[in-house]
């Protein structure tokens, strides 16, 4: 669990950041179109708590070449009660191209994730991906702040590792209902991130307190970029501060999907681009978007 993994963001149709993959495991450069519907084998599938499960699959390339912020469209098994029809999008939680592993961390919420939760070790399932545009770290950034809540933390964990692999420092603000539901702390800790856990339980997750932490990080020069996922309220807060303090940022968004490949236009969200509202597809234009252009949901 402790190995370092390299991630390379891919900005489809936009200027790639150009930096080469960094880290011990040399990965071949990934063409944007390197997507396939592969059959993965479940090698581990455990409950992290009452709601969240961690799914580890052995899967052929290109699946394990996925980058932080990218996602897969998962075919969820049927059970006696739940017959999910469409696939379900899930962010990459970890990819290990050397061992051919992809991991997901998900919350069991409805028909699809209940179906997913039923899959046993040793069974196979189809996963389409890697899909979408992952996170990018601006050239020259020395330290970034990631702010996540709930399952959003799962999406940010590989970003933190990508940053660390490039020698970029990470401040991680992890928001959760209670101490029992903070996830992935060990992964942020393993890369030496400065970790701030904020909870509803003791009131520390209050926006005012989070704002204080963010301003502090900026004040001490540890906020060259902002990243957020998993909470509308926190996104708005980070967006406001980012604008005020001229800190660039990215947000990973969600939307109901069908194809995951940019074909159906089911998954659009509105963005405010230079004052004009523009619809973009979360699946191919995102799921990672510029923080300053995002709109609340």
């Amino acid at each position, binding site marked *: 669990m402790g190995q370092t993994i390299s991630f390379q963001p891919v900005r489809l149709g936009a200027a790639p950041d150009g930096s080469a993959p960094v880290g011990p495991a040399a990965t071949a450069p990934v063409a944007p179109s390197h997507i*396939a*519907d592969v059959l993965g084998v479940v090698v581990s599938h455990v409950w992290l708590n009452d709601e969240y499960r961690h799914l580890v699959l052995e899967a052929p390339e290109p699946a394990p070449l996925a980058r932080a912020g990218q996602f897969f469209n998962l075919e969820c098994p049927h059970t006696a009660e739940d017959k*999910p029809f*469409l696939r379900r999008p899930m962010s990459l939680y970890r990819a290990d191209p050397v061992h051919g592993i992809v991991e997901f961390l998900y919350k069991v919420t409805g028909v699809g994730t209940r179906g997913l939760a039923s899959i046993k070790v040793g069974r196979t399932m189809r996963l389409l991906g890697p899909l979408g545009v992952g996170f990018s770290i601006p050239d020259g950034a020395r330290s970034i702040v990631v702010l996540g809540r709930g399952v959003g933390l799962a999406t940010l964990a590989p970003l933190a590792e990508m940053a660390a692999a490039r020698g970029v420092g990470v401040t991680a603000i992890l928001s959760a209902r209670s101490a029992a539901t903070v996830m992935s702390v060990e992964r942020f800790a393993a890369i030496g991130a400065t970790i701030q856990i904020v909870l509803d339980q003791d009131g520390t997750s209050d926006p005012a307190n989070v704002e204080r932490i963010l301003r502090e990080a900026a004040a001490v020069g540890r906020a060259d970029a902002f990243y957020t996922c998993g909470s509308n309220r926190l996104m708005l807060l980070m967006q406001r501060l980012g604008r005020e303090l001229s800190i660039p940022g990215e947000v990973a968004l969600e939307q*109901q999907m069908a194809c995951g*490949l*940019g*074909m159906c236009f*089911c998954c659009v969200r509105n963005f405010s681009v230079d004052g004009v509202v523009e619809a973009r597809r979360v699946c191919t234009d995102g799921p990672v978007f510029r923080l300053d252009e995002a709109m609340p949901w």
Partner: protein
Amino acid sequence: MVDRGSVDTRVRIGDLVLRNPVMPASGTFAEGLAPVVPFERLGALVTKTVTAELRGGNPTPRVCEVGQGMLNSIGIPSKGIDDFLEHTLPFYRGFATPLVASVSAPSGDAFAEAVARLDAPGVAAIEANISCPNIEEDGKAFAMDPRSTAQVVAKIRRATKLPVWVKLSPNTGDVASVARAAEDAGADALVVANTILAMSIDIETFRPRLGNVMGGLSGPAVKPIVVRMVYQCARVARIPVIGCGGISTAADAVEYMLAGASAVQVGTATFVRPTAMLTVIDGLIQFCARKGFARVADLTGAVHDADMTVDTVEVAS
């Protein structure tokens, strides 16, 4: 048994010969499928419906699943025909597979104008999506009525020398008359059919599950209804019928062809299994080999119904 390698998969849609009868349904296919499906293996490529004007589409959520099917209310977002000619078309010129451009417009004249502009190198045929509202008729969709269908198809026909496929709506009460009207007005083929208007409500929130309240049902749930429409249309039409609705396996495609379809379109199944079209093609060949059909095209209309009559009271159960 016929050797699988010797099954002739070609089908003819008017003057166009397709390498096999399997193609995507409009709106469920785009450039994004290229990494997963070799476009050269498909019978044809069909683009998302384009309109002359820029359109934003409907509010979200635009999709929800209902049993073994889905509802969508995308609403035909469109970047316009210029963008189509400039960006979409060049991409597809790279593939040796006929490209069918789906188009829609709110009036007969607008349709004619749009179709004329699509008469560009690389476009092999026009698919006229006439399930959109006719602004000259209270917003009732052209395809709801034989008369408005005849009028719009006649205008489209005069506007282009390309083959014109007319895509019908399953929401009309008389799809056979609409089919006949389209044929008489000059259509080269019929695509049967678009999605069935439907609705779903979240009983926890009391909200319609689509931002647009209603949307189109597609997927396996619609198959028996649309197979019936293909059967009805094929019995009255001399032009080819292309079946579309709930096809996800070769067995589904065979059923449509037996009912009278000359080719088939696969939509929703591609979302569930991106390589579904390839499976359908392979399975069709296997089926023909097993059943001793040397040509896939011989399946068309091969249902054994000569000794059967239809009692219309059954409509009433």
